[in-house]
């Protein structure tokens, strides 16, 4: 019997479906490997990596100082691999009447300073905030990037991104944040029942939609983030091969089909600095 190598991947719920599709395709080309993928949130994946319970941690956020210190204390060298980029989409119920928001307004809404839609030009009514739980990388990313302080305690903390979409669809005063992949279906059409809000980084910039790929690439849309896969030490063997597959044209096609973007050099360059980690880049290899 042939030896089958098993790779375990845990973490980000934003990434779980995408990585599942990538792994499925990869396993069909290499029967000597079995990849198991579970979600739970970026925090869960990183904790599992630090506790030696997974080979790869999917994460939609960078590592925290605490996590880096813990890795150091345990003699681990975490290596980051950026395999895709995701735009965070702000969705509202169409009856709120909201078309666009500035990043600052968005932050004040989620911090609980702005409580009524009328204050930002919408139909009057108390805003219902939907978000994720603190184990979510999106929760942390959004807080770092948009709020820079704590979320309002009135935030309804949902179990998964799909639940946020469901709830905003039903709640006439609802607002939520989700990954682009949850709004764009595999055939390229949009999820019905929610409105995608156009964002402006500040009042002088134009309001841009995350559905505009050019705006994502140019950085005009303010909420674009890299999706990471962390390993302990440089990935070897089958893990390395899987990462290379993700960067291959076939892998990139799957990434695009799922509503995400393949990483581009400017974003990687901007981020390697941010993460201050050893990063590994397979894109230069494959091109």
């Amino acid at each position, binding site marked *: 019997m042939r030896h089958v190598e098993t790779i375990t991947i845990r973490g980000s719920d934003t990434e779980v479906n995408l990585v599942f599709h990538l792994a499925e395709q990869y396993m069909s080309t290499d029967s000597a490997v079995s990849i198991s993928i579970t979600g*739970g*949130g970026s*925090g*869960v994946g990183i*904790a599992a990596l*630090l*506790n030696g319970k997974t080979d790869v941690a999917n994460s939609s956020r960078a590592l925290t100082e*605490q*996590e880096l210190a*813990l890795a150091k204390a345990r003699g681990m060298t975490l290596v980051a691999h950026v395999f895709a980029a995701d735009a965070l989409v702000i969705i509202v119920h169409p009856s709120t009447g909201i078309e666009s928001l500035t990043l600052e307004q968005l932050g004040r809404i989620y911090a609980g300073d702005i409580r009524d839609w009328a204050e930002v030009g919408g139909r009057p*009514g*108390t805003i*219902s905030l939907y978000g994720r*739980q*603190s*184990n979510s990388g999106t929760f*942390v990313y959004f*807080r770092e990037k948009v*709020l*820079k*302080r*704590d979320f*309002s*305690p*009135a*935030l*309804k*903390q*949902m*179990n998964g991104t799909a*639940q946020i979409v*469901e*709830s905003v669809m*039903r*709640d*006439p*005063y*609802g607002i939520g944040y989700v990954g682009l992949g949850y709004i764009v279906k595999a055939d390229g059409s949009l999820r019905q029942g929610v409105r995608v809000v156009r964002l402006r980084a500040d009042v002088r910039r134009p309001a841009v939609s995350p559905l505009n790929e050019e705006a994502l690439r140019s950085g005009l849309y303010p909420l674009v983030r890299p999706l990471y896969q962390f390993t302990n030490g440089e990935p070897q063997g089958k893990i390395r091969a899987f990462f290379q597959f993700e960067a291959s044209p076939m892998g990139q096609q799957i990434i695009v089909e799922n509503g995400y973007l393949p990483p581009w050099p400017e974003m990687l360059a901007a981020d390697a600095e941010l993460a201050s980690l050893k990063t590994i880049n397979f894109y230069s290899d494959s091109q």
Partner: protein
Amino acid sequence: MKGRRFYWNWFFERSLAVSGVLSIAILVGIFLLLLNNSWRAFERLSVASFFSLAPWNPAAYDTPSYGVGALLIGTALTTSGAIAIAAPLGIGTAFFLSEIAPAQLRNLLKPFIELTAAVPSVVMGFAGIVLVGPFLARLFGLPNGLNALNGAILLAFMSLPTIVSVAEEAVQAVPKAYKEASYALGANRWETLIQVTLPACYSGLLAAIMLGMGRAIGETMTVLMATGNATAIPQGFFSSVRTITATVAIEMGEVATGTTHYYALFACALVLFIITLIINIAAERVAAQWRKRGQ
């Protein structure tokens, strides 16, 4: 001569004794584990701040804060709401089953009610999101139904089987002679039910309610999915609430071992453990009292 039977008896008696002792040992073990870990939480946090209405925000942007007040209110709201719904419904059902329903109907209904206990809690939570929540939102004109009332209704449904089966047992145990004496004095069925049977099995019904409460307070997945999990101090049944159980379940997976947050979650679990222990002991006491009186 000692036969095979003797050894079999000896073997079974001993193994039953071992399993009895084992279950107590496990319970004590859990308690000690909780106590040991919670202790370290209280080395870092003051007891007063832990039980205060300070926000529960261990992953805060600036300074973490660990107040279980709002979470306790959340648990109290969902549980009390559940009991307020399930107690009259469950006891009414128990009376109907044992006193009014014909035997055939009873034999049909009882297994059905007990079967509801087998509905997985994720399924209940899902029903809360897609069925009960939107229904409540429409009924009360709320923007959404992810609130304490939603959780209470689902928990009521989940604690019904416990309440019905214990309450029905209590009603059944009322000696026939009581009812016969009542009928002989000219009381009708309703008068007998309310004035004779009910007082006679009162403590058994109380035990049923308490056991149902124990069931409701510890439920996790359903409330986690259906109540919105907002950590703000609840203003009532229409507020989103986060229960103690949901908090432990949500945060245990991401917490780094040995941190204040980690120990604080154990302290939450300890609080929950003590509450359920008290409820269960009280229920047992009440039930024991009723059994004694029944004889």
